[in-house]
């Protein structure tokens, strides 16, 4: 997977977490995964379609998710409350939206679909369609995982292929 396409997602997560959690996020680890994804905490998935297609999973430690939910709701939130999943969906929407904005402004055209809470079934399917890059971020409130799987459509590849001149 091309790092220049992943970089906007890293920068976006860093910026959004810094804004929302008032603390920087540090990349702790990067790995590739080909099997089904195992959810670590509260997770949301956002798909996108266009010249690049794929999906991103934002997966947060329950404590980190509850912290963000509390900040956005203006009150302390229990990690088990449904509003925590809503908060992670909204956070995923912001992270992916900001990254997609950067990629679109660089000429890649694609459309973002509304976020949803990651189900067990989606977890099982997550690793089957394409290889994923999983980034692990450390924040003062807990670990945040960003699982990125994307692929190019042939049209984009053809546009960038060298043209044979006879």
């Amino acid at each position: 997977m091309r790092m220049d396409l992943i970089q906007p997602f890293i920068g976006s997560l860093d910026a959004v977490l810094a804004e929302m959690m008032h603390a920087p996020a540090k990349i702790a680890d990067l790995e590739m995964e080909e099997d089904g994804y195992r959810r670590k905490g509260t997770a949301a998935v956002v798909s996108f379609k266009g010249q690049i297609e794929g999906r991103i999973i934002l997966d947060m430690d329950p404590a980190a998710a509850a912290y963000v939910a509390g900040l956005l709701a203006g009150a302390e939130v229990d990690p088990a409350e449904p509003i925590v999943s809503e908060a992670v969906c909204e956070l995923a929407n912001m992270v992916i939206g900001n990254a997609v904005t950067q990629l679109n402004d660089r000429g890649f055209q694609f459309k973002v679909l509304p976020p949803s809470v990651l189900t067990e079934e989606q977890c099982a399917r997550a690793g089957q369609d394409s290889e994923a890059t999983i980034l692990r971020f450390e924040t003062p409130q807990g670990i945040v995982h960003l699982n990125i799987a994307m692929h190019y459509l042939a049209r984009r590849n053809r546009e960038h292929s060298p043209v044979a001149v006879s």
Partner: protein
Amino acid sequence: MKQFEALTRKGDTQPVRYLIVDDSVFARKSLARLIESFGGELAGEASDGLSAIAEYARIKPDLVLMDITMPQMEGIEAVERIVQEHPEARIVMVSSVGYQDNILAALQKGARHFVQKPVKPDALYEIIRYVLNDDSVTAPAHAGRSSQ
């Protein structure tokens, strides 16, 4: 949360009435808290573009905060439909997806401004103040994008 000086419409002392349109309950709650800190009143909520059109006609809000990516009908199409029926509508797009094509499309359809999520309260406050005092009926050429 920081409290702001209450925003009002030109020549009016009544609280500004808002319609918030976003498919995320959480985003609607966050925006509702913000407009409360701006001295505004939440007149209505909608979770998609179709409901937003109906809600706008029903409550005639002073200002709409409209998401873009939503099920049923997206925000840009809803803006077009609302402005066709109500050219005086003041709509600010609030979305995490802020690329040029999206912004241009929203402004061309009649949105007055664009704010990218995560929303910075001070930036949104200034934009709403500007939009409330902007008397142009159609989408203004000087409307623009506020990214963080």
